[in-house]
């Protein structure tokens, strides 16, 4: 996992583009780090993209800070990725802002990790109303139980779904 | 035969099929038909003929044998036709009554589809029949008849089966009150206008009965909507016709038409005519007032559980109703059958002596049909240009706006009568 993210800066430097001005991205991170010190870890910054990683116990306070202080007011997408080798599931909230115009192009990826075998995460529903259905989807697709979410229920899958969550890597499509 | 020898062949004949037994069964069937007809049918016919007074032709009683001889000379059938035309049965079932209305209804359905298609840059029915899909309606009717009728489980079966028939019967009862030409009306009531409104009042009841008997939610909501809608529009409907009653001083529809010999009442009561038109749209559940059948909200409203010929019958009833309301508009506001005489007094000289052709009547029928059809087109028109209205706006329109409008026109008419500009029954 860490290898992946270290390589990302190398990837972007190979592109033949003008060296991007990452002023806003860096200022976002500096505000975060001055508030939370080492609780927040920067994974990468790219033009208009910034990814930070926090531990599950700090995610609600970080999310509150992001929403109230920095103005990132809604989640565009909530997705999870399964890493069986490291025995973790990474859940990423892609946050964006409608209320601050200069932040509109920025996507801040707030990622956190949970154990693969007993996946529990605090729900961000008290902070972002927009994650309601996304978290339900993540629950049924990856089996991550969001504590504090009123409905950790089936959403997209059939009513009689009794298999393991389909986006886990050990779930194989038949014949593939 | 077909399946013999152990070969697997695609065939519909049963395994023990034998051609001889097939022919034998047909012969057996024919035998029984002949036996029953000769022993039961023919005696029955003669018993009936014994009691029924047969028409006279040239001083002779027309027996069935004489009737057959008339094939040789077609003019001899004229007395029979004349006799039949003057029976009440003919009037109720064929000419000013059911058949004529059903023909106009059928024409309406076809014209509606073509007319709407042209408005929407489409072609419309095209393939059934050689010319522009003229047999589309026939094909649809055949399809509906051949479909299975599904009654929902838990439905109140007797009501479920009888209400479609009641619906058509009520609509057909309305056609009996419409005067088509001078003297051509099934029942010339003195309270014809009131009778029409009274019979129209049955429709919400039928819709509610049917929707209740279906034991389903969408029809139930649709039936309630139909009830709301028809009650809300009943009052402006009657009020708008009231100014015509003031003008003609009669409730008899024939008298109302004859009071318009000089000018149409539309000239004096245009606001009433507008209210009448809007109310009849609502009464007919047509766009923009098709709430009881709003398919995006309540599937098909109170018609959701109809299938096969039950749906066909209700559609027939609806279009009969459409004809009646268009005809009523023509009678009340557009002078009924009144129009310039364009038919000659003698159509075919050979028939002169028989008096089967009456120039005034044919002229009246012609103008009445033309006007009614124009009115039907006007009722069809909003379907192409308007979306559906919402129930609260609909009720507000019915109870607040249209009632006030019809009162305004009534006061205008009253003022004109008291002012002496016109008297009841025409200009002074």
């Amino acid at each position, binding site marked *: 996992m860490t290898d992946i993210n270290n390589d990302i800066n190398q990837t972007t430097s190979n592109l033949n583009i003008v060296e991007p001005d990452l002023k806003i991205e860096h200022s976002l991170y500096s505000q975060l780090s001055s508030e939370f010190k080492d609780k927040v870890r920067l994974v990468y910054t790219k033009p208009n993209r910034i990814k930070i990683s926090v531990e599950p116990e700090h995610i609600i306070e970080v999310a509150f800070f992001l929403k109230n202080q920095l103005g990132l007011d809604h989640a*565009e997408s909530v997705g999870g990725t399964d890493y069986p080798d490291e025995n973790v599931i990474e859940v990423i909230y892609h946050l964006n802002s*409608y209320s601050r115009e200069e932040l509109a192009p920025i996507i801040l990826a707030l990622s956190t990790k949970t154990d693969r075998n007993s996946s529990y995460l605090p729900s961000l529903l008290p902070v*972002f109303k927009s994650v309601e259905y996304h978290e339900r989807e993540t629950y049924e697709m990856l089996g991550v139980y969001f504590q504090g979410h009123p409905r950790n229920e089936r959403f997209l899958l059939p009513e009689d779904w009794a298999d393991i969550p389909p986006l886990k890597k050990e779930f194989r499509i038949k014949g593939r | 035969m077909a399946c013999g020898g152990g070969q697997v062949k695609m065939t519909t004949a049963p395994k023990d099929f034998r051609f001889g037994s097939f022919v034998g069964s047909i012969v057996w069937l024919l035998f029984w038909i002949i036996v029953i007809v000769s022993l039961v049918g023919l005696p029955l016919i003669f018993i009936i003929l014994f009691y029924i007074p047969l028409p006279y032709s040239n001083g002779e009683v027309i027996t069935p044998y004489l009737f057959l001889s008339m094939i040789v000379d077609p003019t001899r059938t004229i007395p029979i036709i004349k006799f039949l035309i003057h029976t009440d049965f003919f009037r109720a079932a064929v000419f000013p009554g059911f058949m004529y209305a059903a023909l106009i209804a059928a024409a309406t359905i076809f014209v509606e589809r073509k007319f709407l298609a042209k408005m929407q840059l489409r072609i419309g029915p095209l393939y059934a029949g050689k010319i522009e899909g003229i047999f589309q309606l026939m094909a649809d009717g055949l399809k509906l008849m051949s479909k299975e009728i599904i009654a929902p489980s838990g439905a109140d079966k007797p009501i479920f089966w009888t209400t479609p028939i009641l619906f058509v019967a009520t609509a057909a009862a309305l056609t009996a009150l419409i005067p088509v030409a001078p003297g051509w009306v099934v029942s010339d009531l003195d309270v014809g206008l009131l009778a029409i409104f009274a019979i129209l009042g049955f429709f919400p009841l039928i819709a509610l009965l049917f929707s209740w008997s279906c034991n389903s939610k969408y029809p139930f909501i649709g039936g309630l909507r139909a009830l709301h809608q028809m009650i809300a529009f009943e009052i402006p409907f009657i009020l708008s016709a009231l100014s015509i009653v003031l003008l003609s001083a009669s409730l008899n529809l024939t008298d109302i038409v004859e009071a318009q010999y000089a000018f149409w009442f539309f000239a004096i009561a245009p606001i009433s005519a507008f209210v009448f038109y809007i109310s009849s749209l609502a009464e007919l559940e047509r766009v923009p007032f098709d709430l009881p059948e709003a398919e995006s909200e309540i599937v098909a409203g109170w018609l959701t559980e109809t299938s096969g010929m039950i749906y066909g019958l209700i559609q027939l009833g609806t279009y009969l109703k459409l004809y009646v309301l268009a005809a009523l508009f023509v009678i009340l506001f557009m002078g009924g059958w009144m129009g310039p005489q364009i038919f000659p007094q003698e159509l075919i000289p050979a028939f002169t002596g028989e008096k089967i052709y009456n120039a005034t009547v044919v002229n009246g029928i012609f103008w009445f049909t033309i006007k009614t059809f124009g009115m039907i087109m006007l009722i069809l028109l909003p379907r192409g240009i308007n979306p559906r209205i919402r129930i609260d706006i609909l009720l507000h329109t019915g109870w607040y706006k249209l009632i006030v409008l019809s009162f305004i026109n009534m006061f205008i008419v009253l003022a004109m009568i008291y002012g002496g500009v016109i008297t009841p029954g025409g200009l002074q």
Partner: protein
Amino acid sequence: MTNKYSESLDSKFKETTNLGLEVVKEASEDRLMKLSVGPQHPGSGHFRFTIKVDGDYIVYCDPDPGYVHRGEEKMCEYRNYIQNIPHLERPVIHDSTNITYSYSLAVEELLGIEVPRRGQFIRAIASELNRQVYTLYWLAIYGIFLGHSTMFMWPTGDRELFIDLLAALTGARVTHAFNIPGGVRNDIPEGFKEKCLEYIKYFEKRLKEYEDIFYNNPLFRQRTENVGILPKQDAIDLGVTGSVLRASGIPHDVRKVEPYDVYNEIDFKVQYMKTCDSFARAYVPFLDMRESCNITRQLLEKMPESGEVRVKLQSNPKGRIGEAYKRVESGRGALSYYIVSDGSSKPYRVKISVGSFRNILALPHLLVGSRLGDMPSIYWALNYWPVEADR
């Protein structure tokens, strides 16, 4: 009932009756009728939501999508970057160029390639034409949902114009598979520019007629104005996107705020309205169509006369280790792909975030408290495409 919307329901009946609490609950349940809208209901498409009505008012709504769930995200993990394109456009075949657009952008970032300039222009043209196709189809269904059959027939007919253009451009009427990582599949055919300009000129004339018969119709206005108000702050909190967001007074369009490919060279306005009601949500896509005509014309003018349209890729290209998040503005709002690559030729994880899925969150908020007759106008104005939301 475990839903949070049930609270508003209970309080409603406590006001109307003076009985004890438990009796109130039973009595209130008796008054209600539970209606299932979809998936076999003509007013919903491949989507189901349960509503409870008290008389004519909706007091409860619970969306239940998933009837056309295909597992696109799982399927992506089994196919390589090029093989993924045809199945990824299946969720919304009427807007297939846009749904593969952001996928191509994300994969290009992972592969580290840049699209030739002419290829970028052709992509943008195809995407604008396809947006028109989608919006016309959406408008047609909106028309028939409100019982306006002419508004169903006209847009479905005029949609053929753009389908013709796209068929000439890509070779297929609906599922184009035109955008690929590295550019577009083929160059534009001869005479395309003139044909396109002619069609757009005709279409702009038709748009005026749409406005006359539909948007300026007093009955349509009565039905949609002041119906289903989604205030600005609620729109932000619920994270809605596309025309729903712009109808609530926020001029947010990905083409403007984060221009991809050549959109920073195009001069256009973001169309938005401040009335926040169903009418605004129905009118903004219409304004977008008009703006889209303008954009297409500019794209055709500025397009280089000749040049490459795509980069030659090696067969079975391998993405570099890392992740990419790219979004475009589709007919239903921001459409974004989050792709994680582990260095092989197949993506490790693909997450598709679609506008429909984000907009449907607003449905219970808008429906509770509105009339049953407003249900179709509120629901379809959310610019929801059930198949896309299920993926």
